């Protein structure tokens, strides 16, 4: 038998249900893998006891002949942006260091209710702001991948960089991510795994540390499209505690997976063919087009004319929302307090926030404060919200011609840690292909397409209509079946 840690979500669930191995054996194997991978710095805290307790409950339920949940026996990694009762929740920030929520996020609770256990809280970019996991207060995450012939540490992507690194390294079969402008898809692409951001509102935002509330969406990251579908079924669903939660039934996406795309039309957005895009990325895009044709789809050229404005609009809207959301960190109710000698209340706020936030977080709070300030609000924020409406309209017009869109996930493969950390704008450009779907609230996923000449993974992105996660997953499955992506990082940690 292969090692338990090589198994994905479905294989573990079915193996436990069928008695091939116990949930306890699975939890112990992954706990050991996590403990042995400290060099990746993927976890901020580990919770082996949580994984074992969930496994024990699953084994006891099975022994008692009780029905098992959709994720029974599957230990997962939890991005440290989800509030977990009694377990430190930091958003990778100093200001929340030591914060132990008295409540559980809706999404994590749903995962535990489905029988999953928690291996630990995964590292991320601070407050999910970053594309390389280099803004975490708790240190960089290293991608398990390395360029052929090099030992340089590479970025696992961000902001869900702990999630992507853990799943790619086989120290977790799956993990939660959150995606505001690409934070599930870009790290998935960088590490050769799959990840889906569902339609805005599918997964409750209740108990997720807020970054930009009109964009934030949770989703699964795993090593197959089917595993993503299974996990998303457990995470999604209406929640009255989130005012933007979709009051819709959750489809059985995994049961309806179908890679036959006969009769489907796939749009290729011509504006995504940007100057300076890596030739190997363009080649993988062409491969993807050929695979979807092979799956029976008709491929057509479409135009999304406002694409180039998506990223600048995002870098007004997201910081504006962040500056408002992060106003809650005041040193009064929870988290860090800095109280210099003789300080008054205002001094305490300013000192606490100066000590508690990292540079990128401060940069975005300042930009957000500026674009929302009197005199500049219309020129920046209102203009960006109008451009956002045009970007959403571009997609709506595309859906008159096609069922899904195919594009690269990222403009390049992973880069070395440190390469872009001094140039915020260069870092922001990582999300050029992922941000438009976020601004329009659309379901979108990244699926591994192959390796580049350096031996690093490249991802393809499928974007779908609102609520059509099924169409996205089906096209993703068609790519997965034809890409035959079996590469995995060689263990060095």
């Amino acid at each position: 038998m292969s090692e338990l840690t090589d198994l994905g979500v479905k294989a573990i669930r079915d193996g436990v249900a069928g008695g091939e191995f116990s949930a306890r054996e699975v939890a112990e194997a992954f706990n050991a893998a996590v403990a042995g991978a400290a060099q990746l710095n993927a976890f901020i805290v580990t919770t082996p006891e949580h994984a074992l307790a969930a496994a024990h409950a699953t084994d006891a339920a099975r022994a008692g002949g009780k029905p098992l949940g959709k994720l029974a026996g599957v230990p997962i990694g939890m991005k440290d942006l989800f509030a977990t009762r009694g377990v430190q929740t930091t958003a990778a920030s100093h200001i929340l260091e030591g914060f132990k929520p008295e409540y559980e996020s809706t999404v994590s609770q749903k995962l535990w209710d489905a029988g999953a256990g928690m291996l630990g809280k995964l590292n991320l970019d601070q407050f999910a702001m970053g594309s390389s996991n280099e803004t975490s207060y708790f240190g960089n995450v290293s991608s398990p991948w390395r360029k052929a012939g090099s030992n340089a540490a590479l970025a696992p992507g961000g902001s869900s960089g702990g999630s992507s690194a853990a799943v790619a390294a086989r120290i977790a079969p799956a993990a939660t991510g959150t995606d505001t402008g690409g934070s599930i898809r870009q790290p998935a692409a960088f590490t050769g795994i799959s990840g889906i951001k569902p339609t805005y509102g599918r997964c409750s935002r209740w108990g997720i540390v807020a970054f930009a509330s009109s964009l934030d969406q949770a989703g699964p990251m795993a090593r197959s499209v089917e595993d993503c579908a299974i996990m998303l079924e457990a995470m999604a669903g209406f929640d009255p505690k989130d005012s933007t939660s979709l009051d819709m039934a959750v489809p059985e996406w995994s049961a309806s997976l179908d890679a036959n795309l006969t009769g489907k039309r796939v749009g290729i957005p011509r504006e995504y063919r940007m100057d300076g895009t890596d030739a190997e990325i363009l080649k993988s895009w062409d491969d993807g087009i050929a695979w979807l044709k092979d799956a029976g789809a008709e491929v057509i050229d479409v135009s999304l004319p406002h694409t180039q404005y998506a990223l600048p609009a995002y870098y007004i809207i997201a910081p504006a929302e962040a500056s408002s959301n992060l106003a809650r960190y005041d040193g009064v109710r929870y988290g860090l307090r800095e109280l210099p000698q003789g300080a008054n209340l205002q001094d305490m706020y300013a000192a606490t926030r100066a000590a508690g936030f990292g540079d990128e977080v401060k940069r975005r709070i300042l930009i957000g404060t500026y674009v929302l300030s009197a005199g500049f609000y219309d020129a920046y924020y209102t203009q960006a919200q109008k451009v956002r409406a045009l970007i959403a309209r571009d997609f709506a017009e595309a859906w008159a011609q096609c069922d899904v869109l195919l594009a690269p996930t990222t403009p390049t493969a992973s880069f070395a840690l440190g390469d872009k950390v001094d140039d915020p704008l260069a870092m922001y450009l990582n999300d050029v292909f992922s941000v438009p779907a976020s601004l329009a609230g659309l379901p979108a996923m990244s699926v591994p397409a192959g390796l580049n000449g350096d031996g690093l993974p490249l991802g393809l992105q499928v974007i779908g209509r609102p609520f059509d996660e099924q169409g996205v997953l089906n096209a993703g499955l068609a790519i997965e079946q034809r890409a035959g992506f079996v590469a995995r990082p060689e263990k060095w940690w």
Partner: protein
Amino acid sequence: MSVDRKTVAKIASLARIRMDEAELDRMVPEFNAILAWVEQLGEVDVTGVAPMTAVIPQALRLRDDVVDADPLTGGGVRDAVLANAPAPEHGFFGVPKVIE
């Protein structure tokens, strides 16, 4: 439009983030680079376009007007609310003196 050091200092003060001189010096060019880049949005013709307010059209729901409709976020959980406070006092959030 480019901003000067005084403007960035004012924004930092509005955002309640203390910044020393060296930090402000570093932030000004970064801030201006980002502003110069987002200003390309001014090129877009937005005549007759309403700013987006909701990405997926939805009506806000109302819940029944009852006490503790959700016990978790209702009342009577003072200890839980204060559990993570850095300086709770006598069952309240403690803050530095706010009156002279």
